[in-house]
């Protein structure tokens, strides 16, 4: 049973990450299910290849390993899409993953595309003079959507489906860019909390530095998820797990020892980001409306391109 496997240690003999007991999964079963899921999605769509954006972080790294295990590394195109302020260490980690897997990869610098909109060095960009003062959040969202546009373009040239790399934790709290990093044809890790992503990454042998480093969207220098949200992933994961998966109430969570302020803050994040997890509503007018009373599986006879 994989839970009995010891966690990987750092040089000082401390575990590389904290894995709360209730979140531990059987990683062998998870790998089995996910590999079958990836193959099933491709077969139903009539594709044999995948494309994903590889940042050098643990989420996209794990998905690259999972896709390679499911269909073979040669069928996966990893696209590295740094911006000029992106961390060089992230890029080095991405290159380490590509080398370890032996999958095809491409480098697409998005600097010119992003600066072309926001402008640079006093020159106005296509977005006009007003966007030069745009907040880091606007810039970060634009970068995420630029990467999405690149991936969907490479999806055509490589003939592969775009694989999602967002985890359950960031999806639930809405720490994603709508139509940016959350855009995909299917997502193999969207039901795994960050702690479970780490457990899976350790089981699959991702590079140690990728597992150990502080998670970051890398949208601006020195950004880290946990500093930005002022939480720790193991704690956040536990609260989400008990609240969402095990249906415990706020009061029950407080009785279990979680801080009420934190629990309520997380509940607000989940509620305010509901729209990011759902297909946009269509105004109901006709007798039969997609998503309302016209309900077909995404993939059905005739839907495959082959």
């Amino acid at each position, binding site marked *: 049973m994989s839970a009995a496997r010891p966690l990987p240690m750092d040089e000082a003999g401390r575990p590389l990450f904290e894995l709360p007991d209730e979140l*531990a999964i059987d990683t062998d079963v998870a790998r089995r299910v996910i590999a079958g899921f990836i193959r099933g999605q491709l077969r139903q769509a009539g594709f044999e290849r995948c494309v994903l954006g590889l940042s050098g972080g643990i989420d996209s790294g794990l998905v690259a390993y999972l896709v390679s295990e499911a269909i073979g590394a040669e069928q996966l195109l990893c696209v590295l899409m740094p911006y000029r302020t992106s961390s060089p260490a992230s890029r080095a980690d991405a290159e380490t993953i590509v080398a370890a897997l032996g999958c095809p990869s491409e480098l697409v610098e998005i600097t010119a595309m992003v600066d072309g909109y926001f402008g640079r060095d006093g020159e106005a960009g296509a977005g006009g003079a007003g966007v030069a003062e745009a907040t880091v959040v606007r810039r970060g969202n634009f970068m995420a959507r630029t990467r999405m546009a690149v991936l969907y373009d490479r999806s055509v040239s490589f003939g592969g489906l775009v694989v999602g790399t967002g985890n359950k934790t960031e999806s639930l709290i809405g720490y994603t860019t709508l139509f940016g990093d959350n855009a995909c044809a299917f997502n193999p890790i969207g039901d795994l909390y960050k702690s479970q992503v780490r457990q899976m990454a350790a089981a699959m042998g991702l590079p140690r530095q990728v597992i150990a480093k502080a998670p970051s969207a890398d949208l601006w220098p020195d950004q880290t998820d946990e500093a930005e949200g002022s939480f720790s992933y193991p704690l956040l994961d536990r609260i989400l797990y008990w609240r969402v998966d095990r249906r415990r109430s706020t009061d029950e969570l407080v009785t279990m020892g979680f801080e009420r302020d934190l629990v309520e803050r997380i509940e607000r994040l989940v509620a305010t980001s509901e729209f990011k997890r759902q297909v946009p509503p269509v105004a109901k007018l006709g007798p039969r409306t997609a998503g309302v009373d016209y309900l077909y599986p995404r*993939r059905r006879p005739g839907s495959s391109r082959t």
Partner: protein
Amino acid sequence: MTLRIALAQTAPRLGALDDNLARHRELLEEARAGGAGLVVFPELGLTGYQLQDLAAEVAMRLDDPRLAALAGATRGISAAVSFVEESGDHRLFIAAALLEDGEIRHVHRKVFLPTYGLFDERRFFAAGDVVRAAPSRLGVGVGIGICEDFWHLQMPQLLALDGAQLLLNVSSSPGRDLAARNDVGLGTATSWRTLMRTYAQLTTSFVVFVNRVGVDESITFWGGSEVISPSGEPIFSAPFFDEGLYLVDINLEDVRRERIALPLLRDERLELQARELGRIIAERAGLATDSTAEPGAEPGLDVAAAPAPEPIRLRSRRRRAATR
């Protein structure tokens, strides 16, 4: 008497009725070549599970020539197959048919349609109203349940009391609740195994559980089909997630041995059960007062809520004046 059962742990293609019919024919022949007397296919093995609005498009009437052709392939063998059945008045059922010697011997319409959590069956299907064991060329009564049917105690019990010695459960069970603290790593699988083994023991019957594999949309079906003896011991457990045709030999004499040694069915008190059920039905319908409840208990509860503390009375002058 030895019976060789073939467990067809297949991965149906969603909505592709013709492909799935062809696959059933192939596996039937493979089972026959392997000496099987009975081959069991999973729930909706002819159509796939997550059909939604496709259900009406893949539905078959019982006189459908495609079903007749499949039945025609069962000379000298029995097969349990599952599909969407459309009735004369155009209701759609999740059905499982026992095909034998070229005929449709028996049809079971799924009685319990899960409509909660990840399930939405009641939206698309009508529920069956009949539970019957069926005689079979195998020399024993056969009782068929479909997936959720066997999450209700009365189903295996009724089938066994009606004469079934071989209980078939055909399933499309989605794997979920991945857990490390679990002997098979999958919460769903553990629950199913507990239930099926319990039913086999309590009904002193063979239980044959056939669950599909493969992926429909988000859902992965876990397989793990089993054959369980009348004493509740697993005789065979198929691997999780692998497609395959698994041949298992059982000795039908084990039913007699177990029922002699452990005469649970003999000792069932049907008249008592019927009487108490009649009482509970009347009480729940409001036609009789709940005879087992404390005075003041809410409907459906036997125990009255603890009395609330006395409210603090406001003794204002005006109130006193008003009451005088």
